[in-house]
């Protein structure tokens, strides 16, 4: 807009509008507002809320679970140390390899043990990317354990991204502890 409102232009538009509605009586038409979405429920028949939505068969839809889900938010203490990673990296470092060798020795002695490897990230960066990064870390550890002779069928992975930090702090020390793979024996 330049400087002030263009009242001449506005007046012109209003004039045109006035001419357009011309002789119409002022309170003539009672029209439903095209933009007005009807609210569902309460016995009224409304626009179906699924209009233009993906036509999911009603039978495929279940009411949302209200009860608590499986407890994934509490860390299960491990008999093994965590394997730590560098920022934005999924390479198993030398210290992590030593931990993995301890884990591999245990699993070979206990061939019926099943091991879940959780991948975790620090809080920096985007949660979605961190979720994939956590998965990559868990898989890197799994692959190393397999290379040490652990049967792959005894291993599984899950990523929690940045959602479950071990250390609630917000400094380099906390971040370093939170970039990790955590072992859960099942």
């Amino acid at each position, binding site marked *: 807009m330049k400087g002030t*409102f263009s009242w001449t232009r506005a007046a012109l538009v209003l004039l045109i509008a006035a001419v357009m509605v011309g002789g*119409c009586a002022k309170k003539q038409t009672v029209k439903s507002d095209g933009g007005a979405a009807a609210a569902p429920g309460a016995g009224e028949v409304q626009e179906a809320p699924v209009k233009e939505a993906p036509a999911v068969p009603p039978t495929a839809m279940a009411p949302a679970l209200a009860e608590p889900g499986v407890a994934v938010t509490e860390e299960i203490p491990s008999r093994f140390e965590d394997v730590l990673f560098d920022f934005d990296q999924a390479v198993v470092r030398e210290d992590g390899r030593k931990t993995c060798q301890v884990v591999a020795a245990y699993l070979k002695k206990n061939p019926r043990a099943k091991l879940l490897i959780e991948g975790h990230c620090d809080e*920096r960066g*985007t949660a979605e990317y961190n979720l994939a990064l956590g998965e990559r870390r868990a898989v890197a550890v799994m692959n190393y354990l397999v290379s040490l002779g652990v049967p792959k069928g005894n291993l599984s992975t899950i990523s929690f991204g940045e959602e479950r930090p071990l250390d609630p702090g917000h400094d380099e020390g906390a971040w370093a502890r939170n970039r990790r793979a955590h072992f859960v024996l099942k």
Partner: protein
Amino acid sequence: MRRSIGAAAGAVLLALFLYPSAAYPVLYIDINAPGGKRMPLAVADFAIGPGDPSLSRGIPKILSDDLTLTALFDLVPPTAHIETVTPAHFSGKPLSFPGWKMIGAEAVVIGQAEVQGGQVSIEMRLYDATQGKLLLGKQYTGTPRQIRSIAHRFANEIVYTFTGVRGVFGTDIAFTARSGKSKGKELYLVGMDGQDIRKVTDNRSYNLFPRWSADGQWLAYTSYRTGAPAVYLRNVSTGAEKAVVRFGGTKAPGGFSPDGAWLFAGVSQGGDSDIYRIRVVGGTTERVVQGGGLDVSPSPSPDGRRIAFVSDRSGSPQIYVKTIGAGGETRISRGTAYATSPSWSPAGDRIAYTARVGGRFVVVTVAPDGSDPREVASAADGDCEDPSFAPDGRSLVYTYRKRGYSSLKIVSSDGRIQRTLVSGIGDAGSPAWSPGR
């Protein structure tokens, strides 16, 4: 998302055209002019018939707050108003326009409300104070719970009258946050004005990455509630859900195709994340992007022909654009070693993403070919992440994080005007702005 649907349980919300309304917008305000002058506008206290006298100021407050948010109007404060609006002003008695002009108002909004038998009737009018002309007049009926929705609707009409672009009042923003002392994350909705926060999920697991369908009826999100992650589709009105992505390891929805037929998601298998599209009905799956690196966060263009996504194929996460079904994948992020969470603007002319610059995360927008980069949100003391465009493209919502404290903020797309949308809710993040009405 329509607030009226969320508000629900009410009678039909009807707006009646009483007058020739602005079928053709009166373009008083050029929203593209940088630093343009704001329209001085007064919202008078309403005339109240039988019913709740608090509506006299309650509805004008909602209208004023909405119009203030646009940064297109200067609201003349009620203390300066010199005329009391009465029912007579709705049956022929003219307003004292010279008086309104004298206190600086070039436009005046008046209204009257009446509550009877659980129904509220609200009539609102917009006048050009200089010409003394009626620009817009509407009458709405609904339940008392729909009053906010009705006020937002009229505010949208006012914005449309002056700019030719419909306002976004009454839209919602979905986000994730910790609920109380729970360590899990739940989905929430909040009105774009920061009011009316609603909890969507309640399973004390991790519920992440809400994404809207183009019609605003569905939210896709990742949940760990069965122990393993799956992507669920939730009908926002009814709460009905179904799992749509169960294969693979980690998975995160990125967005829907415009027709709602496909859901795009990043899904990892064997540590390598690729981008898939999944038929919402039937579950047919197609891989859209694959490669040795992590490919995540697909954001479909509004025409559904392209996607923006994140890949770390170059050694660090960067933003790429690809035409679906074609070969080429073009990198559009430059000058940063960490670029994530792309979000396509509703007009298709910009892509927003998170970039790490100088050790901080900032929100940047670029043209879809990567040209014309603009930093729209940054903070000296914290990080700005996860942008999502408003349906009118004029602003974005993003997450501001500082040492474990987080809030959701809204910034105009030119980066000049900021406000806080949500604060004080644990770890609020992953905001996604609903489509417009």
